[in-house]
């Protein structure tokens, strides 16, 4: 019964979406307000309907209804409650329902905003959002239905179907196969929802962009409306990427955080174009430039979201992340063709209306540096895109699939990332409209000298690799510039208003959240860069087989192997856990428990490293081979300097995004702002 209700709710949601699309189109054509209002309500209604379906699926998962194929595939009796709930997005079908649900939540939120001032966008926002939603619902209903069940046919065969075939009786397996153990990690539980949230929330700015194109209202209104949506989307996408890296670092057991896997890149590409978009919309808002470019960027971001989802789910590319091959590939292909061609046609149609209203006057102005920033992000995007589709190209032209490895990406993107860092140091100091070398130099020279002092200090301290020195110099420069900017602004405010420094800092950030939130984000990026430099340039590793009482050495660290315990747990695992003591410069610093879990239900193993973590470095021990042999147990050890700054930087980054996205105290409308200015002038 529960399965039927869940499936029924999906069908109703699908029909409602189609109705909303038609009502929106008709309302726009006839300027019929009642039809528009009806379309708006249809969009609002999809969310409760899909919520009902999600509740049904979760109920089946929690209740252990293994007659439902999806429940059988992703859960088992041994799994604790929270994992049964999160198994909702543990497989293809469920995660598509989950995706639709999040998408509908954003659609519903968009319908609830005040529409009176930009009513003309409404029909097209409804149409674009609901077309996307209807497509995903269609996939769930017609191809990847999570509610299909097992049946025993009269002739003894087994069947999988939504409704009972003639004469069939329900077939209820005793237990499910269980969730992939690799996914049983807090980072992994939150990583997909965050990515999905980031993906689906980019649909809203895209919908407004398309609405602006269709209606021909090509001023910066659509950008002002979607500014916060875009930041929220970007926040979730960033969170998803950071959590994914943390998961990889904790679980995959190779001491790494990013493997340049096609699916990682698929999630990274919309982030790149989204980041470029976040920066370049500011130019349009302040200077009226780059209208076409912004439109291209938002279309590109949406296209990359859909393309990335397609890559992950269709089986076109080989990847550790990919879902099992499924029939949704061709349908996705059709949808991609439809949206790409449609968006591009619309963009070219409105090309002439999207002329810039201003002129770029100085090569050192803020807008010129933002343009450079955009070009660098696009450069990284092109490298990533080429790497992802290269296997497909090579297969067509040479008949063999040639994939590119991490070294391709690292070598091609490292200089671009370094240039971006440098730009992060300089751009905040330049002014809108007009900057000269002189004005820039005046703002820059103090942090510049301080950063060079830092590098000299590092050189004296014994670091000789030029790549490391260059990287640390960039990090020092950007952080000093950012802190110096804060310092100057706070001191100026203190002098002007007499507020104490902390209060001045608080009010400053409160008055221009986007700017100062952006600076916090920059600081976060710099801290992350520190962690990345540490692990990329200074990571060391060793591997060895030792008996109990034996030890392994790596740098300043010694690891003493005490014993190996093997035992079964309540939740269906067989655990082999090593106990090792860690010494740094021959001083005891703690005990680690690297272990290997074997999951009886899914017959899979998972290695969990033992990590001693400090802000200076991580000492990371993995149990490579646990079946005792005459030689003993094999361990692999990594020394990862500075890696924790990556996670600290991630937190700072998120904090900065929250500051930037937080609603302003002052009303945002230009009219209110104008009134305020008048009031100030009058005072």
């Amino acid at each position, binding site marked *: 019964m529960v399965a039927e209700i869940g499936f029924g709710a999906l069908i109703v949601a699908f029909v409602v979406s189609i109705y909303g699309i038609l009502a929106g189109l008709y309302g726009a054509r006839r300027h019929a307000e009642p039809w528009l209002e009806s379309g708006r309500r249809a969009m609002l209604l999809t969310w409760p309907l899909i919520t009902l379906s999600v509740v049904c699926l979760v109920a089946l998962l929690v209740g252990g209804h293994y007659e439902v194929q999806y429940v059988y595939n992703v859960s088992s009796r041994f799994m604790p409650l929270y994992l049964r709930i999160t198994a909702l997005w543990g497989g293809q079908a469920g995660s598509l329902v989950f995706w639709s649900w999040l998408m509908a939540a954003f659609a519903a939120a968009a319908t609830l905003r005040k529409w009176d001032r930009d009513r003309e966008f409404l029909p097209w926002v409804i149409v674009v959002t609901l077309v996307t939603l209807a497509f995903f619902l269609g996939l769930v209903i017609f191809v990847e239905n999570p509610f299909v069940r097992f049946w025993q046919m009269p002739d003894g065969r087994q069947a999988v179907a939504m409704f009972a075939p003639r004469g069939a009786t329900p077939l209820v397996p005793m237990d499910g196969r269980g969730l992939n153990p690799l996914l049983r990690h807090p980072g992994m539980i939150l990583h997909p929802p965050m990515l999905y949230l980031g993906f689906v929330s980019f649909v809203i700015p895209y919908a407004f962009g398309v609405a602006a194109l269709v209606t021909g209202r090509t001023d910066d209104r659509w950008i002002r409306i979607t500014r916060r949506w875009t930041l929220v989307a970007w926040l979730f996408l960033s969170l998803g990427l950071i959590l994914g890296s943390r998961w990889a670092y904790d679980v*995959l057991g190779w001491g790494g955080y990013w493997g340049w896997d096609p699916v990682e890149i698929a999630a990274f590409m919309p982030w790149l174009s989204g980041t470029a978009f976040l920066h370049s919309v500011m130019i349009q808002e302040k200077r009226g430039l780059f209208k076409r470019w912004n439109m291209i960027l938002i279309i590109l971001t949406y296209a990359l979201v859909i393309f990335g989802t397609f890559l992950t789910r269709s089986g076109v590319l*080989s990847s550790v992340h990919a879902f099992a091959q499924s029939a949704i590939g061709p349908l996705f292909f059709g949808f991609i063709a439809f949206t790409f061609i449609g968006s591009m046609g619309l963009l070219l149609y409105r*090309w002439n209306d999207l002329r810039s209203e201003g002129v770029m006057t100085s090569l050192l102005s803020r807008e010129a540096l933002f343009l450079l920033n955009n070009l660098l992000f696009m450069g990284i995007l092109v490298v990533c895109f080429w790497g992802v589709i290269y296997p497909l190209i090579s297969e067509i032209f040479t008949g063999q699939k040639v*994939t590119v490895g991490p070294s391709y990406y690292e070598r091609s993107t490292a200089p671009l990332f370094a240039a971006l860092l440098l730009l992060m140091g300089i751009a905040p100091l330049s002014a809108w409209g007009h900057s000269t070398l002189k004005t820039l130099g005046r703002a820059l020279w103090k942090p510049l000298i301080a950063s060079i002092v830092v590098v000299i200090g590092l050189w004296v301290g014994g670091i000789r690799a030029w790549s490391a020195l260059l990287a640390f110099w960039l990090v020092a420069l950007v952080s000093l510039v950012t802190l110096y900017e804060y310092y100057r602004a706070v001191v100026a405010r203190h002098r002007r208003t007499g507020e104490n420094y902390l209060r001045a800092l608080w009010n400053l950030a409160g008055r221009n959240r986007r700017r100062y939130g952006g600076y916090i984000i920059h600081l976060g990026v710099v801290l992350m860069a520190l962690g990345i430099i540490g692990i990329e340039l200074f990571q060391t590793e060793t591997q060895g087989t030792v008996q109990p009482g034996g030890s392994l050495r790596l740098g300043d660290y010694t690891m003493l192997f005490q014993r190996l315990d093997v035992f079964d747990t309540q939740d269906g695992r067989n655990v082999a856990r090593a106990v090792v003591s860690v010494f740094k410069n021959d001083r005891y610093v703690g005990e680690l428990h690297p272990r290997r879990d074997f999951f009886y239900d899914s017959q899979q193993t998972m290695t969990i490293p033992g990590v001693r973590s400090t802000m200076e470095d991580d000492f990371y021990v993995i149990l490579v081979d646990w079946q005792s042999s005459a030689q003993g147990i094999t361990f692999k050890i990594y020394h990862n300097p500075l890696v924790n700054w990556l996670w600290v930087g991630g937190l700072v980054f998120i904090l900065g995004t929250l500051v930037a996205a937080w609603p302003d105290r002052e009303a945002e409308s230009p009219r209110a702002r104008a009134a305020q200015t008048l009031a100030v002038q009058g005072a």
Partner: protein
Amino acid sequence: MSTDSQPNTGSRSLSPVIIAISFVVLIGFLYLIGQGLRRAYAGPITIGQKVPAFELTTFEGEVIHTADWQGKVIVVNFWASWCKPCEQEAVDLERAWQRYHLGGEVLFLGVNYVDTEPEARAFVAKFGLTYPNGPDLRTKISQMFRIQGVPETYIIDRSGRLAFVKKGPTTLNEISGVVDRLLAQTP
């Protein structure tokens, strides 16, 4: 983009050539992923299907023809030196090989997927692999099996049909469970 920085005077239409080029590029891109999709859906060899004969040139230069091993069990493992899960299973694969190779009824083939030779050789040396290992020249073998990534392990039974597929790292128990069962079958 260069037009964006131009003053806003006059309305220049987009030339049809640019429009055409934009669409050609887009259609070309769609064709590309369409072809990729078509190939992906051509499907791999499925369990129970006959596996075509292939040959592997080992790092030592020896050429092994699977056709010469008719009636035997063949374990084909795809790996790469850059693949971390491959390290995890390498020890077990070698152990399994040690268990079977004296009997002469089982052949292990390590197929090195998309790799550089020095690193691949270092991997073989590091884990002391003694069964035949060689590069997948022109990615022929991996294309035949339509592998999705490394590691993947395929076991072919005595009649030359695919009997077992494992995507992801395998274990000694898993291999020996399958191989023992296949050895018990008559060709």
